[in-house]
Structures are given as C-alpha cells and as structure tokens.
C-alpha cells in the first residue's frame, strides 16, 4: 500500500533543486493555495498540540483518564446512566460503560500514546531507510547490490504480520508496558524502512550525476560530506512526504494490534484500546464508539490529505492541464 508513494514521488520531486527559486518556497506557495491541504495541516497541528497537552492537562487535574466512577454506569448491563454515554458538564463526551472513566480524557491520552509511538517509529524508519538508500544509491556496485538484496529480503516480510507473529516471543507473559512501547516502535520501523530505502536509492541514483554533486566531488569533498551536506537536503521532500504518509499507517497498526490484544495494560489508554473497548457497544452505547472512532479516522485522514498535498505541491507537473 505504501508502494504507491514510490510511484507518486517518482523522479520529479528533486527537479525543483535545479530551479532558480528555492524549492521550499515554491512548495510553500503552492501549499498555501491548496485549501484542503492547509485544513489538514491545521488538523494535524491541532491533534499534535492536544497530544502534547494531554499529560500537562492531567498533571493540572483538568483531565483524568483513569479514575473510575461506577456510580455513573448503572444502566442495564452497566451502560452509562443518561443519554450520549452519560455526557455531562463534568464528562463532555460521556463515560466508559462498566467503569465510568471520562471518555474525552482517555481519547486525548490515547492520542498522546499513538502520536508518540508512531512518531518515534517513523523517525526510526526514516533513519534506517534514508541511510540505507543513501549509501546504496551513492556507492553503487556491490554495496548497492548487497543492500538491495537485504532490502528485498526485509520487504518480503509483511509488516503487520510480523508485528503479530513476533509478539509472543518478545512481549512475553506478562507483557510490560515499556516492552510493548519498545516492541511497537522497533518492529514497526524494522519492517517499514525498505520502501523508503528504495525511494531514496532511486533518487540518489539520479542526483549523484547532477552537476552540483560532481562539482562537490571534484572539489575534494568526502563521501560523508557529500551524502549529508549535498544529497540529504535535496531529499527532504520525499522524506517528508513519506513520513507524513507512513505515520498514520503506524497509528492504524497500533489499533489493529490492540484489536488482537497486543497493547498496553489498563488503565493506560491508547486509541486502539479505547476503540476496541467501545466496539461491543455499537448498538447499546453508540456515542462511546463514535468518539475514539472519529479521533482515529481524523488522524489517518488528516495526515493522508496532508501527505497528498505535499506530494502535489512538490511535483512540478501538478498545475499542468
């Protein structure tokens, strides 16, 4: 599914590097004209701010994702007393059936968790993928050949399947929360980097013969300097787009794993665990299902639209026709 990005990015992204104006400003001007992308950027920023704010708000006792209120869930089958999941001035989006925790607080904290692991895994993915792609593309020959085989090898293992398959080995019994966090980040990145490595490699292949690179080389710049100072800046575009599109897939993966029970121990909420907990209540407490559902969809949707917009803005062909 991420393979699409390779295609969308194509070999056009870096073409901007040889234009007169800096590619960044061109891109930004294009972006500002694109209302949908700007709106999704705003949503992404808002969600990120909420994710950062949640632990602070908790420390200030503004939100409380943990404390049970059994007295608020005395309906048949322990659903919240009152309509809309028992929404009130105290609990804006209602409380959790059976236990009475504040739903809004839990979703905000879930955002914090999901953003943290997804961002960390994305960073690790980018680190590995870019390094391998750069080295592979720049050195060519046997380095490229062997790294490409490794990339192919890792690519053969579907990421989600590996997340599931490796869990009994690395999470153990009982699964500690810190272990789960490390496991998610590492395994997501470990089976997620090859796509980016491929994109970067093909970019580098075309870049390394460009004049400014050959010029730098003839001036005696070492390979590390060329890779980091000359090539890497030109690759910011594809890396940014890739990161934007891969991050929400990691959030989705977290939710899918939570569905399979591979997640944090309670009472710590993640978007996935809150959503999963709400699934059985699809008929008896629909509001409860909607809140984490909408939050998750918003994250995935906003990041994808933003990624699309970024790719479009960086693509010199867009705007034709």
């Amino acid at each position, binding site marked *: 599914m991420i393979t699409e990005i390779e295609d969308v990015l194509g070999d056009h992204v870096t073409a901007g590097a040889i234009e007169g104006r800096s590619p960044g400003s061109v891109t930004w001007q294009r972006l500002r004209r694109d209302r949908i992308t700007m709106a999704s950027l705003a949503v992404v920023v808002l969600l990120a701010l909420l994710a950062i704010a949640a632990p602070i708000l908790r420390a200030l006792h503004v939100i409380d994702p943990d404390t049970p209120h059994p007295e608020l869930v005395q309906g048949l089958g322990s659903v919240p007393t009152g309509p809309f999941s028992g929404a009130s001035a105290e609990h804006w989006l209602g409380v959790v059936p059976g236990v009475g925790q504040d739903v809004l607080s839990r979703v905000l904290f879930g955002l914090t968790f999901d953003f943290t692991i997804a961002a960390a895994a994305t960073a690790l993915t980018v680190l590995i993928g870019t390094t391998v792609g750069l080295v592979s593309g720049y050195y060519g020959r046997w380095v490229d050949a062997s790294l490409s085989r490794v990339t192919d090898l890792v690519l*053969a293992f579907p990421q989600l399947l590996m997340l599931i398959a490796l869990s009994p080995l690395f999470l153990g019994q009982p699964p500690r929360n810190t272990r789960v966090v490390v496991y998610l980040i590492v395994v997501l990145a470990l089976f997620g980097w090859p796509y980016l490595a491929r994109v970067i490699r093909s970019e580098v292949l075309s870049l390394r013969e460009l004049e400014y690179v050959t010029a730098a080389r003839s001036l005696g710049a070492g390979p590390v300097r060329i890779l980091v100072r000359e090539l890497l800046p030109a690759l910011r575009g594809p890396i940014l787009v890739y990161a934007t599109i891969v991050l929400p897939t990691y959030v989705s993966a977290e939710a899918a794993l939570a569905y399979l029970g591979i997640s944090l121990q309670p009472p710590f909420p993640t978007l996935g665990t809150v959503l999963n907990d709400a699934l059985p209540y699809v008929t008896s407490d629909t509001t409860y299902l909607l809140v984490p559902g909408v939050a998750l969809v918003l994250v995935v*949707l906003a990041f994808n639209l933003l990624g699309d917009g970024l790719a479009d803005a960086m693509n010199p062909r867009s705007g034709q026709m």
Partner: protein
Amino acid sequence: MLAYVVRRVIAIVLMLFAISIVTYLLFYAIPGDPARLTCGKSCTPELISQNRQALGLDRSITVQYGHFLHGLVAGRNFPDDPELARTHPKFITHCDAPCLGYSPSRQTTVNNVMGRAAPVTLSLTIGAFVLWMLVGVGLGVLSAVRRGRIVDKLLLGVTLIGYSFPTFFVGLVLYDIVSVKYGLLPSPGYVALTQDPGGWFSGLLAPWITLALAYTALYVRLTRARMLDSLASDYVRTARAKGLRADQVVLKHGLRASLPPIMTLAGLDIAGVLGATAITEQVFHLDGIGSTVIEAVKEADLPIIVTGVLIAATAVVVLNLVVDLLYAVVDPKVRY
C-alpha cells in the same frame, strides 16, 4: 528472455533460502525457551522437556534447521520416537514431504492446518483484489475524466475516508450491523468454491468489501494520477486533435498507458496484503492463513507462526517475479 527468467528464478530460490534462515534465526535463536511457548495450557516442566524432545528443540539450531530442510524433502514423524511407534502406532503422526512441521496446539501437521487454510486466504485475497482493482481503477478513471469537479472531489474524499477506518472496525460493522442486524449483506462465512459457488460468493462478499476498502482509495488516487499524466502526454493530445471520440481517447490511450505501472504496484500489494487479510479473517472467523497465525500467536504455537511467515514471504517474492515477468511481456521497452 529465457536467460532472464532462469536468472530470476535462481535468484528467487536463493532468496527463499535466505528468508527461511532469517525466519528460523528470528524465531528459534532468540533468548527464551520456544519449548515453553509450545507448551501452552497446563505446562509442567515434564511436559516442556517432553515437547522439547518431541519437536527436536533439544538439538542445536543448525540441527533443527537441518531437520526442517530434511522434512521438506523427505517428510518426518512426530514425535520421532521409534519406541512409541512400535507400542502405540496410533499416537504417531506422519508428515509427508514437503513437511512444514507439527503443531503442538492442534496436534496435527502444519501441512494439514495450512492446507485447509490456504484456499480460504486465496479466495479472500483474489476476490478482494479483483474488487479493489475494478472499483479503484474504474473510479480513478472517472475521477481523472471529471478532474476538479464535484464528482472527482467526492470520490477522492469518500474513498479516503473508507481507507481511514481500520480494517477490523469496518469488518465488525459490516458483520454485526450490516449483515447480522439488518441483513443487508449475506451472512459471512467460507464454503469451498467447488462445493457451492453461490455460497462461496455470498459468504465472502462482506470480507471482500472489508479488505478491498483498505486499498480502493489508493488505487483511485493512483489511477487518477496516472491517467492525468497520460492524458496530458503528447500522443493523447495528438489523438484528440485527430478527432477521436473522448471516451475512446480515455480508454484506448489513457488507460492502456496507465495500466502497466498500476499492475506492477498491484502485484506488490497483493503479495504484501497478508497482514490485512489476517485481520479480516479474524473478524469474519474465516480459517485462513492469517487467522491461523493469530490463533497460533495466542497459543504460542511456533511451527504454525513460522510457517505462516514463510508462506507470506514466499508469496511476496514469487509474486514479485511474476509481476516483473508480466511487465517484461507487456512492456517491450524493458530490457533483460
């Protein structure tokens, strides 16, 4: 061409070999006791050591890997105990070549388990693939033709929203609400195609939709982008200038030029789909390879997990080859 094919096939065989070694190392060489994992319920130290022996886990990893390779070629007995074979032949399970191992939690060979699971996963994957390609490419073309209009934006938006819902969420809503509660979709389940084609189709409809939804949005966007490219290309402009009808231009030239790269990506996606199928199978209780692996994870049944991973990796590698070969056939520009 032949030389190219031969070269690729040899490379694939080497790759599969490497995959099997990596998988083995990953699952059997890590710290921890796989025998404890294979023990499952009511584990006692005696049972652990018994399992360790029965599964050959008391040997070194290289010997175990050797057993695995030997089993692939010549088959194996579980447990491999001549004494027991003599006294209670009924307790011995023979596993014919290519033997993939023995599942302690299911007390049968992995071949049996996966043999039953494979048709389910194949049916699910191929059906969903056809669905997402038809719908995705179709809507993509429509979107490209109506570029910038309401239809275009609506299509992109709606499919993207569909994509944004997690697979398990879509699946459960389709199952519990759409199918069971309101009866708008036939009740999901798996019947063999050969046994009852109608039942096969109706039982898989909801799972197909669920799985396809995760991909449709991507193909709508991909097709749209490709179509826009090729519609803007010189020869399409020429065709248009020559007065060809609009729909002919779109279909004959635009789509034809767009299809090969789409198919390439599709080939890769269908191979990598096994994670998403696992979730779909789990939601709809289809006994495919993915849900079998998930069940095995709960029971820590390593032979099944390892085989599931191997099957997935093999599928990716083989389909990669198929795509490359197809591409070579379709696009004469490709050099071998």
